[in-house]
């Protein structure tokens, strides 16, 4: 690892559902500004790990720290306030709102004004609204959805909905972004554009943790890869290292997929 | 002490019918995810069937109970087929509001047909209660307890020992997969609603002669059924039986030692307390039929 400072530490985290072990003793770190991927077969505990990191699940043991703060006991919205923002595997949009309004909802953290100011329409609240609208337009442009701004988010294709999900997450001003299978359902050119987007996000100083099945995509974009199987880490390292790790090939990559 | 024993006896008698009410509601919620606001009306309906058969037709008291069960079954099936089947797949709020509409219409219908004057049913049991040491209990109430216990047992066996019951449990756990096993899910829904309704009607037919019969009698019964189901956990039959007895005990103690005016508040207070402190019901295995 390089001399980056550590953004997130996952320290001996375990999750049990009833008697079922979803994650056992998971430990790894993510450095500031790094792109790390978490891979492994379905049911290996990747999404569970995301849920623990973002407060949707309380781990049975161990702890997660982000920028020096222990996340245990914090609610999801409090964790979001620390700048740790995630996306979701399936449709992660507000389907009945326009794409533009989706982003405005995502800008919640930025747009807090006093309730009374908002109801009375005081200048402070109005100025804040103007700033939000400005910011929403910028974000739409960044992810390339400006032409879809006035369409209902639920009417978009899966690939576009994924982009809305990312724009929403970006609206929440993350310092670290957790992406849960962002390119599933995207075609090759959409995926290619998405990789560019991920890089441009990282270039703005945002740390990225990625869960993804699309191996070629993971291999191109990641600085480091963590491989999970049965709730345990079976390998960790650079894409080149992982591609050639016999344990990973046997448990996950299998026939030739690793050589993308 | 003897007063307390008397409360316990009353609790046993009441608890049986409450359990009957609760099982019907919990089945319908557990399997169909429908909050059945017509449950109380079916209770009222059962009581009026008792009144019609015994008082108006002059037939045997013991014959009236199976008639009420059958009538409840038919009315329940009719409600399911006309109101719920077309709304399959709608959200729970919509079916809940439709059930509220049906409740208003049916209760007003009862008021229209039978009027607001309370009716009573003559029973073949002796007036003099059975006295056992310090406590006494009327023969009618003993019969009610025995009949309720029998109906609960039949329902339990139906759910746990028959092929229909197995299909109901399978549908509750995963309706798509149940249909892949060849289960006619629509038929299961209709039967579930009909069975739940017939149990409510049976409870009404049993308690009607104990108290008096009037069109709004079902409202409190419905609330009690909700309290029981929440106590026992939605979809949990054993929980509903235990919940029925707990509610009866709380009411007896509340009426006996606090104030009789608050007897009927016990159900609501239990609902609020359980939902605040233990939202999945008192018995942890909440999501389960059987």
């Amino acid at each position, binding site marked *: 690892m390089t001399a980056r400072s550590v953004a997130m530490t996952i320290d001996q985290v375990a999750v049990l559902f009833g008697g079922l072990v979803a994650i056992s003793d998971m430990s790894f770190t993510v450095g500031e500004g790094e792109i790390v991927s978490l891979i492994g077969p379905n049911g290996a505990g990747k999404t569970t790990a995301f849920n623990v990191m973002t407060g949707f699940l309380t781990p049975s043991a161990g702890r997660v720290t982000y920028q020096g703060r222990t996340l245990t006991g914090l609610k999801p919205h409090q964790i979001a306030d620390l700048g740790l923002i995630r996306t979701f595997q399936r449709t992660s949009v507000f389907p009945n709102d326009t794409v533009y309004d989706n982003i405005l909802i995502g800008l919640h953290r930025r747009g807090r004004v006093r309730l009374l100011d908002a109801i009375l329409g005081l200048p402070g609240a109005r100025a804040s609204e103007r700033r939000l609208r400005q910011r929403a337009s910028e974000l739409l442009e960044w992810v390339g959805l400006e032409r879809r701004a006035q369409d209902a988010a639920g009417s978009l294709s899966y690939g576009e909905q994924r982009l809305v999900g990312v724009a929403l997450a970006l609206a929440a001003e993350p310092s670290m972004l957790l992406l849960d299978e962002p390119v599933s359902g995207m075609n090759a050119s959409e995926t290619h554009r998405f990789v560019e987007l991920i890089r441009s996000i990282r270039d703005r100083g945002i740390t990225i943790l990625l869960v993804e099945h699309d*191996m070629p995509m993971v291999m191109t974009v990641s600085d480091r890869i963590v491989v999970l199987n049965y709730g345990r880490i079976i390998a960790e390292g650079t894409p080149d290292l992982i591609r050639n790790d016999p344990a990973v090939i046997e448990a996950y990559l299998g026939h030739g997929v690793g*050589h*993308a | 002490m003897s007063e307390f024993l008397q409360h316990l006896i009353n609790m046993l008698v009441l608890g049986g019918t409450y359990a009957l009410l609760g099982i019907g509601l919990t089945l319908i919620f557990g399997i169909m995810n429908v909050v059945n606001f017509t449950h109380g009306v079916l209770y009222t309906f059962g009581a009026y069937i008792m009144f019609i058969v015994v008082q108006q037709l002059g037939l045997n008291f013991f014959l009236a109970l199976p008639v009420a069960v059958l009538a409840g079954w038919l009315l329940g099936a009719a409600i399911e087929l006309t109101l719920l089947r077309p709304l399959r797949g709608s959200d729970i709020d919509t079916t809940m509001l439709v059930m509220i509409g049906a409740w208003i219409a049916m209760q007003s219908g009862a008021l229209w047909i039978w009027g607001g004057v309370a009716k009573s049913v003559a029973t073949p049991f002796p007036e003099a209660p059975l006295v056992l040491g310090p406590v006494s209990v009327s023969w009618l109430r003993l019969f009610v307890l025995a009949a309720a216990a029998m109906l609960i047992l039949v329902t339990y066996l139906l759910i746990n020992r028959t092929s229909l019951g197995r299909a109901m449990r399978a549908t509750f*756990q995963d309706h798509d997969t149940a249909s892949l*096993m*060849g289960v006619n899910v629509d038929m299961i829904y209709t039967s579930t609603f009909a069975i739940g309704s017939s149990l409510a009607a049976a409870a009404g037919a049993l308690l009607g002669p104990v108290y008096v019969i009037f069109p709004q009698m079902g409202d409190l019964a419905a609330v009690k059924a909700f309290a029981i189901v929440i106590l026992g956990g939605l979809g949990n039959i054993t929980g509903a039986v235990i919940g029925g007895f707990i509610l009866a005990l709380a009411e007896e103690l509340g009426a006996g030692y606090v104030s009789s005016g608050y007897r009927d508040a016990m159900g609501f207070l239990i609902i609020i307390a359980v939902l605040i402190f233990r939202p999945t019901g008192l018995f942890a295995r909440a999501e389960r039929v059987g």
Partner: protein
Amino acid sequence: MLEIRDMVCGYGGVTALRGISLDVKAGQLVALIGANGAGKSTALRAISGLVPPRSGQMKFEGIDITGAKPPRVLASGIAHCPEGRRVFPHMSVEENLDMGAYLRRGSGEIAADRDRIYAEFPRLAERRRQAAGTLSGGEQQMLAIGRALMSRPRLILFDEPSLGLAPNIVERTFAIIRGIRDAGTTVLLVEQNAFAALEMCDHAYLLENGRIVLSGAGPELIENEHVRKAYLGG
């Protein structure tokens, strides 16, 4: 055995299948491969009647089953082993197996079939009174397969049987599926693990965006340039 012609199918405003035609010949193991969201699962759900088709025709052994509900499809001899196994978690192993025979009559024969499945999967026999939800993923997969067999189907639809299973269990599952075919039951298999599916099948169809774009024998498809690039990672 199973003939599908121009089947169109979707949910609400979304069309998942845009007119597919395929044939499954008796005694074969036919694979349906494709990316996530290509419509593979929808195809199986349409065959078994969970999703009503918008248009097109389905025939099984010459009998029209277009638009038939699941119980009728099952009664005609098609069992569906759903994605994610979907055992009934609060029922015992034995009750799960009995659910598979829900439409059958004759408890003696059913018990005999159950014993055959226990003989095949001794783990299930050991756990016959245990709630299915407490089984491991692999055991649940065996139970789901056993349950599908309990209806004595002539065609079994398998939806992603390898999903979320450990590699060695996946291996075992595929061996069982081949065994089912070898014992004379026809199999239609939907699988994300394209390589494994192509290796073991007699015939395969490739589904992309709700359409069948390619079909042929397994080895043929493995050699196909497009398939190699898009699904085999090279």
